[in-house]
């Protein structure tokens, strides 16, 4: 007697399901190494793309895949169990949070380089922003990163520091905040709004502004040294990856002369060759040239 056609189909599907894993099992040859996951702050994207290429040439047997996002988002993902081998944050506060959550050992943290802020405007500078004081003009639209993100925190600190400057006028920080139209999730989104012409000026990292200038997508307006905020880019092998040769090699490469040269080329502030573990030490000397003038 014929089996009910529906039953026959179910049995067939079940049989296939059971047989599939057997067919998929790998042969005796060892599988290719899984790429090592590196979590890096959004502001490091350009520099780290280049770093990865150089690292791939130096150590082709250690493939790397990078994930870029706001530092706070990266730490949150690691806290939820994301399998990152290396963490690179845009400031020490985010790295400290990872240390506090025991996802990174304090001793493993190293300082990569420094960064500071700048103003970025669209290439033709339609609002003719020349300096900080222009941020309070009535028609100027300002964007910045959210305060939870390192770039946003640094921008907020910059505005606080500016309150003490008499030439900027009373209530400078409040007047600027009134012109802030959006607090973006990461500094690159703020850059995008400026590049698209939606915002007149963005408070971003100097490295981001330089990248825009080089790409012809924007112009940079510098911030006086006395007010500028210095951020410290930190790197560490995550606790779960401690002892693995790949992540350690990657970190060493970033800190090597070759890696530091790449960071400097992108506008980051690098220290002199002999690098100490991340303790609050003297400020590294700037070695990156200033390029880009207001439009």
């Amino acid at each position, binding site marked *: 007697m014929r089996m009910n056609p529906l039953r026959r189909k179910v049995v067939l599907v079940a049989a296939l399901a059971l047989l599939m894993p057997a067919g998929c099992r790998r042969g005796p040859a060892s599988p290719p190494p899984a790429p090592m996951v590196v979590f890096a702050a959004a502001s490091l994207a350009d520099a780290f793309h280049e770093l990865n290429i150089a690292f791939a040439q130096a150590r082709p047997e250690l493939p790397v895949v990078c994930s870029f996002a706001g530092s706070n988002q990266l730490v949150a993902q690691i806290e939820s169990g994301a399998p990152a081998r290396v963490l690179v944050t845009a400031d020490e506060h985010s790295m400290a949070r990872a240390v506090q959550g025991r996802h990174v050992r304090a001793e493993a943290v190293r300082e990569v380089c420094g960064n500071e802020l700048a103003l970025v405007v669209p290439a033709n500078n339609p609002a003719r922003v020349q300096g900080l004081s222009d941020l309070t003009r009535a028609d100027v*639209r300002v964007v910045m990163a959210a305060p939870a993100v390192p770039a946003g925190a640094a921008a907020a600190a910059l505005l606080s520091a500016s309150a003490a400057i008499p030439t900027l006028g009373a209530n400078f920080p409040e007047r600027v905040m009134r012109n802030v139209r959006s607090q*973006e999730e990461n500094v690159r989104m703020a850059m995008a*709004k400026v590049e*698209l012409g*939606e915002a007149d000026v963005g408070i971003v990292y100097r490295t981001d502004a330089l990248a825009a200038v080089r790409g012809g997508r924007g112009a940079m307006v510098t911030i006086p040294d006395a007010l500028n905020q210095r951020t410290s880019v930190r790197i560490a092998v995550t606790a779960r990856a401690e002892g693995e040769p790949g992540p350690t090699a990657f970190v060493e490469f970033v800190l090597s002369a070759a890696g530091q040269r790449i960071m400097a080329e992108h506008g980051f502030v690098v220290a002199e060759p002999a690098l100490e573990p991340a303790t609050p030490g003297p400020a590294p000397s700037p070695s990156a040239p200033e390029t880009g003038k207001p439009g």
Partner: protein
Amino acid sequence: MRRRRGSPAEGSAGITWGLSVPLLALFVLPVAALISRVPIAQAGEILAEEPFRQAVRLSLISTAASVALSILLGAPLAAALAGSRRRGGRPSRLLVIIEAVVDLPTVLPPAVAGLALLLAFGRAGPIGGVLAAAGLDISFSLFAVVIAQTFVGAPLFVRAFRAGLEGVDADLLDAASMDGASRWVRLARVSLPLAGPGFGAGCALCAARALGEFGATIVFAGSLPGVTQTLPLSVYVALHEDLDRALLMGVLLLGLAVALLGGARLAAGLGKGD
């Protein structure tokens, strides 16, 4: 040939239900996990926070405005589409294109939708440029939030309301016109009352979708607490900072969405009685 679909044979019903369990579990388990982790103890404290109340207020206002705008702009479209198929025969190519256009926002990834809206309505865009010259600043405003939410929500309203209108028995309309009712009277006295459930369902679906919109909002309208940071944006921000606040806001959003969907089902079910 025997038609097996919908076969009442009990054996096959058991098997199909059994095979349905994984998907139902996929829907239920994450939601259950979310609810189980709600910090009830801190709920009162978090609910009183100003940023939280701002986000709730912005979400409710923008969603209400989006639904209103969807009804205003979508009802004529739904009526036009409903009438076009009724005439029978093959649908014209233009109609097929229009229907595809109405489906477009639904299949567009939200962030892409936001970018597209920004390019069109932003200051530097064709439409936004004209509006900006006239003094109307759209981007980075609550109005932008409403536009983004309407973009994703209106198609759902149009679809449901159209279905409701098409469900109106053509014979009733014919009888009304034979009794001398004008087109408007037919619309007001026959079509609309009978399509009421479709209308209600459309409003609820549109509202639920608008309430939950994230990608298009954050790209087009930006994110500023008290101005454009709706609940979904707030949840995203809180996710990286304070998990308790994120959980609480998430559950609130979930509750609102469930209430709206329940309303949609209720409205859709109301019409089936007679």
